[in-house]
Structures are given as C-alpha cells and as structure tokens.
C-alpha cells in the first residue's frame, strides 16, 4: 500500500471504529461458505489473485466477465420459465399463453413417475401422476405437449435425468412427426445424473450404467443434433438441498469434469461436444455472493477445459441457465417472495446468466397460478425494459469487493475440486456418499441459523405478518389426470403393433448388454409407441434399479443451540417423557411416492434426534402400505410425512388406511410437513392428521408440538 492510501485508510479506520464502537478487525462477518466479509474493500484487495485476471474483457479469457463480448447490449437473456403440470393438453395451453405474453423459450417440468421411468398406470405412482409436472407416457403425449409450437423455431429445455433416454427419444420422434428433422431441434436436456445421486434422487439405474447413458446422449447429440445442448450440469438442486455456494460451485464443476471424461472415453474429441455443455445454477438471496459465483464458475471452467486440451474457444466458455431460489421462498407472508425473487433475478443478471427462470411467489405452497406466473415473468420483463441493466456489460467489474469475492470463491471451490479429483472423481465420491453428507451438513447448519434467529427471514422469524393472506392456488385433480393417462395408454396399446414393440424392446435390452449407443434402439421403440415405462423396464432388466444408502449427520443442529432455552425445554420434556414412559419418544420420518426431495426429511430427522427423539428413517419411494408396516413393527409414537410434490392428498389417506388395516386400534399420530397449500389443511385434519408444518416452520417449535401431541395421546389411553 502506498503511503498516501495508507494514511487515508488509517483515518477511515479510526472513523469507522468511532462510529461502530468496534475494532475494525472484529468487524468481519462470516458467510455460510466460511468467507470473511470485511466492512470495506480497497484497491489492495485486488492483489495476489491466482484465478481472476482483473484486466480481462467480456468474451475473452478467462471469461470471468461473460461468455460474449456484447452480452445483453446486443441481445438480452432468454426468459425461460419452467412449467408443466397435469396432462400434456393442459400444459400445452399454458405454454402457448406464456409465449404470447413475452416468454421466449420453453422449459418442461415432467411429473415424478415420468422421471422415475414409470407409466401413469403403475400402482407405485398413484399419488404422483401429473402433480409436480406433466405426465408423459408415450410419444403421443409429447406430440400433444408441443401441438402448434413449431419445434424448429422454439428452443426447448427439458428437466429430465432418470428416464432421459425414452424422453429424449420421444422429443426427437415428436419433432420428426411434426416434420422437423432432428438436426434442427434446439434446446437442452438436463441429463445430469450425478447430482441426482447427491440430492434430487430421481435416478433409476445405478451410477455406472447411468453414466454410460449420459455419455451415449452426449455422443448422439454431438453427431446428430448440432443445435441441442446435450447436458445441463446443475448446481441448482444442490443449493436447494442446502449446499452453500462453494459446495454448489465445486461439485457442479467436478460433475462437469466427470461428464467430459465420460464423453472422451466414448472416443469423442473434447471439442466435438464441449461447446454444447451447458450449466444451471441457483440464485439465492446472498446478493453479491451469487454474482461472484457466476463469474467464478466461468473463470474456473475455462481453466478446467484448457487442462482437458480444448482448442476451440467455445469449449472453454461456460454458458448457464439460472433459476431463483425455491428454498428461499416462504409460505408465511408469501408476497415477500416477489421481492426476494426480484433481487435474486437482479443478481443473476449482474452475474451474466444466459437465461433465467424467476419463481412465482406461491411456489412454496403449490404450483403457480396463471396470475402468479405472470408476475414472475414480468419481474424479468421489467428488468429488461425498465431498469437499464442491459446497457452495460458486467457493470460490477472492477468493484474491489466483487472482484475479491470472485477470487475467494474460486479459490475455495478449487480446493474442493482438487480433493474430489484426488478421490478419483465425482462418480467415486458420489458412490461413497461424501458430497451428499457435506450438503446435508450445510443444510442443517442453515436451518439452525434460521431457527435460532441468528439469520433473519422477514415474515418468518421476525417482522411476522399478523394477518397472513390466503392466496389462491392451482389445484390438480391427480386422480382425473391419472384416469385420462390410463385411457390414453390403453388406447395406444390396443392400436399399436404389439409384436414389433416387443421386438424393439428386446433389441433395447440386448443393446444394454454391449456398448451400443442406447438412444438409437430407444428411438425405434418409441416410434412404435412403446411407453416410457416399458423402455425403462427393458433397461432395468440389465442394469437393475438403484437404491440409495442413506447416511445421516448428527450433532450439527444441536451444536447451534447450546444453552438455548427453547431447545433445552424440548430436551427436558423428552427426558421427562422417557422417565414416565420407559423409552424415548419414537418418530418415523418418511417420504412417500416418487418424491425424492429429502432435504426436509433429513433435517427433521437429524434435529429431532439431537433433541432426544429416537428417529427411524424410512427408505425413499415407499408406498403408504410399506410405511404403515414399518411404523407398526417399530411401535413408533408418530409418523412425520415429508411431502414436496403435492401427493399428500392421495398418499396420507392411504397411509391412514394402511395403519388401520394392520392395527385397527392404532394410536400412531401422523404429522405432515413440506409444501402444503392452506386449502388442503382441512382435508388433512379431517383425515386425522394431527399437525401440519409448512415451509419455514421452526423445527424446535415443531418438535415441541410433536412431543406434546404424543404425550396427550398417550395420556388418553
């Protein structure tokens, strides 16, 4: 530091300490990522960088400032809203309306049965059909989904990982039957299976064959579909599951490296496919951190790809889609979500995203309505048309703070990437369950900060709204959707050439036994009207279905509450319970149906155990009947059902029935947590649910309620 600046800084520091009555050195605040944020940054903070090059320009190495030279000044980001529900017919109507209102690209949400490779008529998926996305059973559904939407002009993004083969095949065949050659199809398929094993759990097959499928798709698209992104390497779901930004960044890029290796192992040259790799990040409420994350991601990816020997400049460039954070939305005081989403959107734009989805404010409760979807879309239209943010490329470049943060994030992420590489790459790390555990640990810490009030969430743990508004929600009658789908499947099965379908499926099974690119026999089967479920089963015969081992963290939650009065109150209630009843209160925490989002369930399990409950963890994808058997055999006092995919209206009554079938006198209490619209509360209470905990519920308060309910229930005996 030169003398003049040094003197200036000393003067500033004195004023700062006088104003705040605190030492400057004690005035840092630590982020979730473990980065110390100082109250002021200076030119000195731009020195000794190993990743960020402060003098670089947009569209130039190391691409920190953006993939293109002109960025939004030439063309703004693509407004790409993720949507899909019910039947293909209804989703198609919704898409067309959105396109008329200014949306530019489509992004398809599939329902959970489709993700997991089950047809709508499968008994296992009773509660899930058409719920969290659109149900696709055959190519006919896919054709309806894009009815009157010309696929040679519309870029389509598809969130699909498990049943990626039959779904991509259906898309290709739907295009062909619309008269569009596959080489003209543009868009993206998520095709990112590694993160499914870490957080989202919509996998079908074990990791190794799943990686082979990913590589097959990269190979096929690089040869036949030049306008189509073969993969969207996603950190989004990691942040949603509770990962901090360093974990999200590092694991996403490490996943990317693994996919590059998988494609190279198919004999492809890195430049054959690398330009069509795309990314997907979450944008949460930590405003500057999110901006820095996108800048760091581009910087690191360029370095990674150079090390892979990429020669084509386009191979070095990280292009990304972003979505505002779903987990930052609250059920309480829901209009606050519009404001949260707006800031998150601005973060994504200042970070230089290529396309963006903004969440609707009611998504902590249910699927968006037409009205809430409009507000979400307008959030972006206002940014594009009214604020002037498109007029300057990377406007925060040169900011002492943002540049420094970009460097800090890059460094921390690089350390984790190096660790993963030393372990032998992400497939191995995922199999060992390391990333999953790290993310759960981070999630539990975040939850503890909110519950203890050390992190403020407006309207939830501070500034609560005394008059909570009741918002309209979109209601899906999944029984009707299921009936419709079953009828369609039956009609198709009657009219198709069964022998030809069987032969095509046998071919597919055989192809899975050798190195054939599986998309080719898949397209053949789909063309003949084989269903998504049939195709998935044909491969399952060779690969088997994957069941995840479940590891749990413990002690992370409780550590935040040492000496906390509320926490100790619950602890002592549990001790008293044990003295009176001869055992601890025992709770079974479950997910039912095909909903694999288990962050909530895991956090509840670990924090309840920290307070003194004995907690049974059920496996994923259980049927209500299985849950009932498990609960009764272990004689639990209560079952906690975690639901995030809207299946609760079918699955909870089934669970009640299951309990009574085994034990007509069952006194097991059932409580439900997750995404549940207030309109459903009465229905659940009528079905003997004892308590409902929406998103943002304080876990200690919830635990106290549960122990009180259990005690009351036992005293009635």
């Amino acid at each position, binding site marked *: 530091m030169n003398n003049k600046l040094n003197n200036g800084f000393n003067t500033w520091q004195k004023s700062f300490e006088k104003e705040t009555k605190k030492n400057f050195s004690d005035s840092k605040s630590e982020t979730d990522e473990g980065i110390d944020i100082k109250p002021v940054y200076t030119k000195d903070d731009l020195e000794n960088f190993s990743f960020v090059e402060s003098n670089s320009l947009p569209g130039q190495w190391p691409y920190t400032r953006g993939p293109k030279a002109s960025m939004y000044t030439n063309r703004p980001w693509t407004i790409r809203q993720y949507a899909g529900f019910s039947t293909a017919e209804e989703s198609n109507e919704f898409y067309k309306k959105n396109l008329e209102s200014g949306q530019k690209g489509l992004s398809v949400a599939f329902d959970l049965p489709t993700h997991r490779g089950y047809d709508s008529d499968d008994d296992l998926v009773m509660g899930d059909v058409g719920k969290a996305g659109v149900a696709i059973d055959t190519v006919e559904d896919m054709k309806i989904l894009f009815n009157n939407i010309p696929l040679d002009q519309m870029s389509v993004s598809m969130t699909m990982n498990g049943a990626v083969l039959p779904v991509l095949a259906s898309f290709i065949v739907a295009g062909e039957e619309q008269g569009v050659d596959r080489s003209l199809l543009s868009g993206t398929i998520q095709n990112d299976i590694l993160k499914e094993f870490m957080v989202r759990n919509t996998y079908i097959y074990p990791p190794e064959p799943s990686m082979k499928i990913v590589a097959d798709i990269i190979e096929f698209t690089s040869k036949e579909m030049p306008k189509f992104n073969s993969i969207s390497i996603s950190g989004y779901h990691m942040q949603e599951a509770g990962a901090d930004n360093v974990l999200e960044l590092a694991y996403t890029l490490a996943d990317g490296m693994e996919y590059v290796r998988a494609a190279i192992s198919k004999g492809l040259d890195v430049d054959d496919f690398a330009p069509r790799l795309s990314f997907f990040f979450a944008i949460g409420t930590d405003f500057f951190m999110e901006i820095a994350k996108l800048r760091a991601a581009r910087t690191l990816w360029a370095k990674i790809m150079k090390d892979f020997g990429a020669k084509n400049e386009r191979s070095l460039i990280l292009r990304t889609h972003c979505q505002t954070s779903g987990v930052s939305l609250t059920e309480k005081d829901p209009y606050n979500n519009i404001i949260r989403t707006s800031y998150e959107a601005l973060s994504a734009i200042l970070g230089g995203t290529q396309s963006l989805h903004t969440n609707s404010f009611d998504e902590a409760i249910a699927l968006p309505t037409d009205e809430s979807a409009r507000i979400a879309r307008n959030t972006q239209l206002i940014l594009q048309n009214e604020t002037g943010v498109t007029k300057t490329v990377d406007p925060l470049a040169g900011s002492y703070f943002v540049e420094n943060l970009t460097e800090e994030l890059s460094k921390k992420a690089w350390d984790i990437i190096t660790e993963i590489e030393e372990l032998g790459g992400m497939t191995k790390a995922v199999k060992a369950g390391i990333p999953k555990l790290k993310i759960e640990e981070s999630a539990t810490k975040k939850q503890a900060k909110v519950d203890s009030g050390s992190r403020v969430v407006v309207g939830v743990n501070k500034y609560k709204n005394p008059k909570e508004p009741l918002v309209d929600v979109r209601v899906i009658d999944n029984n009707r959707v299921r009936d419709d789908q079953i009828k369609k499947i039956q009609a198709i099965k009657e009219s198709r050439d069964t022998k030809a379908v069987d032969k095509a499926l046998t071919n597919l099974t055989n192809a899975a036994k050798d190195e054939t690119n599986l998309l080719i026999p898949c397209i053949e089967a789909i063309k003949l009207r084989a269903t998504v479920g049939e195709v998935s089963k044909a491969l399952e015969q060779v690969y088997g279905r994957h069941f995840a081992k479940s590891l749990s963290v413990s002690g992370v939650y409780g550590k935040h509450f040492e000496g906390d009065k509320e926490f100790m109150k619950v602890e002592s209630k549990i001790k008293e319970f044990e003295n009176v*009843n001869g055992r601890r209160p025992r709770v079974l925490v479950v997910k039912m149906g095909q909903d694999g989002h288990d962050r909530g369930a895991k956090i509840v399990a670990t924090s309840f155990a920290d307070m003194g409950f*004995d907690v049974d963890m059920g496996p994923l994808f259980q049927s209500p009947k299985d849950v009932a*058997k498990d609960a009764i055999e272990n004689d639990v006092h209560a079952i906690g059902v975690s639901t995030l995919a809207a299946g609760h209206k079918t699955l909870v009554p089934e669970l009640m029935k299951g309990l009574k079938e085994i034990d007509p006198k069952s006194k097991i209490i059932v409580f439900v947590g997750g995404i549940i619209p207030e309109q459903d509360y009465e229905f659940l209470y009528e079905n003997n649910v004892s308590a409902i905990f929406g998103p943002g519920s304080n876990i200690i308060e919830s635990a106290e309620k549960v122990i009180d309910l259990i005690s009351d229930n036992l005293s009635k005996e």
Partner: protein
Amino acid sequence: MELVDKIIKGERAAIAKAITLVESSKDSDQQISRQMISELIKKPGKSIRVGFSGPPGVGKSTFIESFGSYLVSQNYKLGILAIDPSSQITGGSILGDKTRMVEISKNPNTFIRSTPSRGTLGGISMGTREASIILDAAGYDFIFIETVGVGQSEIVASNLVDIFTLIVGPGSGDELQGIKKGITEYADIFIVNKNDGELKMEASKTAADYKSALSYYKKLDELEKQVLLVSAIEQTGMEDVIKTINQIIDQNKLKGIFDERRADQLEYWIEEEVKHIIASDITKRLISKGNIPKYSKKVMKNEMSMYEAVETITNDTLKQ
C-alpha cells in the same frame, strides 16, 4: 394373557407392543414383560436364531436384505432384530438400517425391528433376548440378530443365538491379527461379502486367508469353521449360506451341541438376571445411605485412606 394369544396368532401390532414392553425401562412394564415372557417360553416355536455381526462398512444390512430376500422367496418367515449402532453423543438415535432393507421390509412374511444400542455392552440392547422369544412364539422360522462388530459385541450376541456369523469385507485379512482366538470360538460361519466386480480377486484371497488362519486355531473336537464367499449386491452365494446354516444346525442337533448351547445360554441368562437384580438392589441401598459423599469428604480431609473408605462403605451396604 390376551397379549400372549395375539402374539401366538402372529398379530403384527401385538408383537411390536410386546417388544416395546421388554425394552422398556419402566418397572410396571418390566413386570408385565416378565409375566408375558414366562407364558411365551412355555409355548416355544421352532425358530433358528442367527446372529450377524461384522465391522461397519462391510455391508451387513445389504447382505441381510439380499439373504433375507432369498429366504422369503423360499417361503420362510423371517424376523429381524437390528441393533442400530447410531451415535449417542447427542440425545436420540437415527435408526437408518431399514433404508438398506427396502425389499424385505415390504414383504408380509418379515418383521423388522430396529433398536437403538444406547451404548450398552457390545451393542446388544436390553430386551434383545426377550424380543427373540416373542418372535419365536409368533412363528418366525428364522430370527436374525444384527449387531455392529465392535469390541465385545460378538461374545454377547453369540450368547443369544444358535448360530453365529461374522461378515467381513475383502482385504480384511490384515485384521486376522485382531481376530485371534476369541472370535473363532464364537463364530460358526465367516462370510466374505463383496465378492463382485473389481473386488472379486481380493475377496477370494481373503477367504483363503481366513480358511488357513481358522484351521490353525481349530480345536480337535470342533467342527470346521465355514468360510463362504457372497455378493450381497449381485445376490450370489445365498444358497450356500442357508445350506451351511442348516447343515451346522442339523449336525449340532445330532451331537447334542444345539441343546447344550441353549442350556448354557439359559444359565447365562439366569446369572445375568440375578446379577442385575442384586446390583440394582444394592445400588439403591448404597445411594439411600449416602455413604459415598460422607466418606469421600473424610478421604479429602486425610482422615482415612481411599481403600479404608471403600471397605467401610462396602461392609455397611452389605450389612443386613
């Protein structure tokens, strides 16, 4: 007793409640439990009790899922008592065993109960023996008792079962040093899991290492210890396991070892119960007399030695 009838009928909820009673630390529950067990013991079933133990990470639960699936496919009824080794640093436990027993937990011919170990000796919880009596009376053909293999657990667990199995992983040959004599006396079968994929060679080598080491420790009059290779993931070797179990049981029955073992176990059980009652009785007396704080003060003041204090307190407590 109504509960007893329901257990014998095999009613799932009754079996579950009965296990809760035997695990309960409440005096009134223990009284009912004793009465219930006395009645159940008079109506024994024909279960074979098999113990499974092994170090963490060798795939015990996965093996039980795989082997259990095979047994139920052969129409056996299977009860599983899983002692969950989950951490007890913090208050409660997370019982996650069943997440690795997805298929068998669905089957109507299984009953699976997890119990937190609570750090008791060898991970065997209070009530495990009684729980196996309940499942026996309820008509289960096999009762598996799964414990994590740490320290003394094998010895305690082997006292509850007719046949005891140690599950190990490939490359555990180095641990043979640690096995030494103790365990060979307790385990009847050694199962080397993960005989699949890249680990196949290693698994075979480990099995061979075990075989040679075990023959070295073999006593003259003893049956040869069995070493089996399985893959829980690929479900291979399962017929061998059941065949071996049945063989050993048949031989033991023929030679009278089976009954001898059960008699020894009964003796051990009685001894444990008596010790338990005496200990808790004397502890109560010890605490009510308040001698410990009284005499420790004297030791602090150098009025008597520590050993004098111990002797005085012991005599005073045992005095009628």
